């Protein structure tokens, strides 16, 4: 008996001969159902246990970070890794974050916010426009350009750093936030997602109708298309923001002045300082608490915006 496959299944529903269904007696079907539910119950517990084990694996380092953030440097090196020592040290650490180097940590955090939101918003706007253009307009060279965009993710960033540095340096943008924001406006994956989603959820008929009604292209776009794209827009926005927030290599290469650094590069500076000798400083407690505080915004936003993640990442994967 063939297990129904994707294509066959709907037909099977219709075509299943009645004779097959009544082959099982009522009692047999009831037994089957009971067995299945019992098995499901057992399987449910098993599934939950497996899921919880997996969840624990993924949480362990984060838990470590949380515990580490509440310790002083001395206790970091002497107390067991996974449990608290003197949680009140957390407040000393936070105070330290305000004091050390004139509270530059909070500047870093602010920079991360600004860079992520600005480039995230910008990248989304650009991606939405481009996705719409690719999806709904048949202009010459469209396929080629789109293919080139997708192919671009294959070139390692290491190759591009020097020329990008030179370009930005020409305009005096090195060592400013723009050196991070402008290159981050590039989100080929976002364009891909928007294109696919636009193709799938904006019917051409709607656009035609709007054109016949005399609305201009831009008007059509803003009043009709955009509302339909809302879930995808939010997803691309979130992906872009996370991408820029977590970006390390680009700001490392482009920024020098400590006050322009995002929190990833800043913490790395402290890390190098703590590992090295000759005039360095050991600020392990600030690194752990700083790292912990810096992951909170994203973690919290993940928690609060769950449905967008799930909804959006469907895009482009199932045709």
């Amino acid at each position, binding site marked *: 008996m063939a*297990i*129904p496959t*994707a294509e066959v*299944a709907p037909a099977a*529903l219709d075509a*299943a001969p009645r004779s097959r269904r009544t082959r099982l007696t009522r009692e047999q079907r009831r037994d089957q159902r009971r067995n299945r539910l019992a098995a*499901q119950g057992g*399987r449910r517990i098993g*599934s*939950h246990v*497996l*899921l919880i084990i*997996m*969840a624990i*694996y*993924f*949480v362990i*380092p*984060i838990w*470590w*970070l949380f515990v580490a953030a509440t310790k002083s440097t001395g206790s970091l*090196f002497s107390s067991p*890794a996974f449990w608290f020592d003197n949680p009140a040290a957390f407040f000393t650490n936070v105070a330290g974050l305000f004091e050390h180097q004139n509270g530059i940590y909070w500047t870093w955090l602010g920079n991360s916010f600004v860079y992520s939101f600005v480039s995230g918003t910008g990248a989304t706007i*650009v991606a939405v*426009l*481009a996705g719409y*253009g690719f999806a*709904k*307009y*048949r*202009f*010459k060279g*469209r396929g080629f350009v789109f293919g080139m*965009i997708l192919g671009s*993710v*294959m070139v*390692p960033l*290491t*190759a*591009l750093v020097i*020329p*990008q540095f030179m*370009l930005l340096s020409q305009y005096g943008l090195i060592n400013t936030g723009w050196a991070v924001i402008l290159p981050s406006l*590039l989100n*080929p994956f976002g364009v891909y997602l928007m294109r696919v989603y636009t193709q*799938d959820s*904006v019917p*051409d008929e709607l656009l035609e109708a709007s054109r016949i009604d005399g609305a201009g292209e831009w008007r059509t776009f803003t009043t009709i298309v955009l509302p339909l794209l809302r879930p995808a827009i939010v997803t691309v926005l979130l992906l872009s923001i*996370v991408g820029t927030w977590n970006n*390390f290599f680009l700001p490392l290469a482009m920024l020098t002045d400590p006050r322009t650094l995002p929190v*990833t590069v800043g*913490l790395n500076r402290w890390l*190098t300082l703590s590992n090295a000798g000759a005039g360095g400083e050991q600020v392990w407690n600030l690194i752990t608490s700083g790292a912990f505080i810096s992951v909170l915004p*994203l973690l919290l936003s*993940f928690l609060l915006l769950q449905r967008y*993640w*799930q909804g959006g*990442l*469907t895009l*482009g994967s199932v045709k």
Partner: protein
Amino acid sequence: MTTHAVAAPPARTGRHRSGIERRQRVGWLFVAPFLVIFAAFLIFPLIYAFGMSLFSSTLATGTKFVGLDNYLKAFTDPLFLGGLGRVALYALVMIPAQLVVALVAALLLDNLATWLSKASRLLIFAPYAIPVVIGALMWSFLYSPRFGPAGTIFELFGLDAPNFLSSGTIFFSLVNVVTWQWSGYYMIVIYAALRSIDPAIYEAARIDGANGWQIATRIKVPMISSSMIMVITFALIGTLQFFTEPTVLRSVASGALPADYTPNMYAFALAFSYSQFNYASTIAFSLAIVVFIGSFGFLFLTRKQNGLK
């Protein structure tokens, strides 16, 4: 849900043709902002970097044009080839690892709807919120023979904790870090694809007597094959360009992780440690060629399942 363009009326009035042309222009306009940034920050640097890769600059004698000789040098460079072999090995191990974890988690989540499963979903996805640098920092502490929990845990079993950062074990340590970092993201992609399958199909299958395992393997997995292919492709590109995690772990394991451990790291070291910017460009482009061949090759091999046009 594919949409077809409404057939344009065959009228050949000037007005209509200019309408088509106008619409084409508008199409370009929409795409323009992206293309401008793309040209500035990708195309131009690419061309420039490619140009750089055709020159040879030695410390003692300066720069001269050598054309494709650099590429010949790259593809016979034992450090580059060794690095390629390494990342290929990583791909063979890491991608299935991430895929299996992501798939199993997604399948489990698809079957359950309790708050526990929802919480698990969030927790499994959480590492995506953590910058790779901080993730690697956390693991460098956890792997530390002194400060990591390995010592106490292994003591419980009366064993000596292995050194996770020695050259013999660094491979699996890195596989672990990457699996931890990215499986959640892939899980969400697969889970989303699973959620969009019409449940009626499962009902039909159950009526025909299929059990959960069969449903999972014979229905769900094939139906989301295009998602999985996408996941594998991105993972492949990322693994071949392996850079950030080994670089961050170098600070605690520079013996096990030399500067040229992966081709991308090699390009970075050539540029920034040894000041060989031209050859670094060559290595980076050579890597891009391999990535291109690898990923498009993979997509070609799976062209039936991947759903791409």
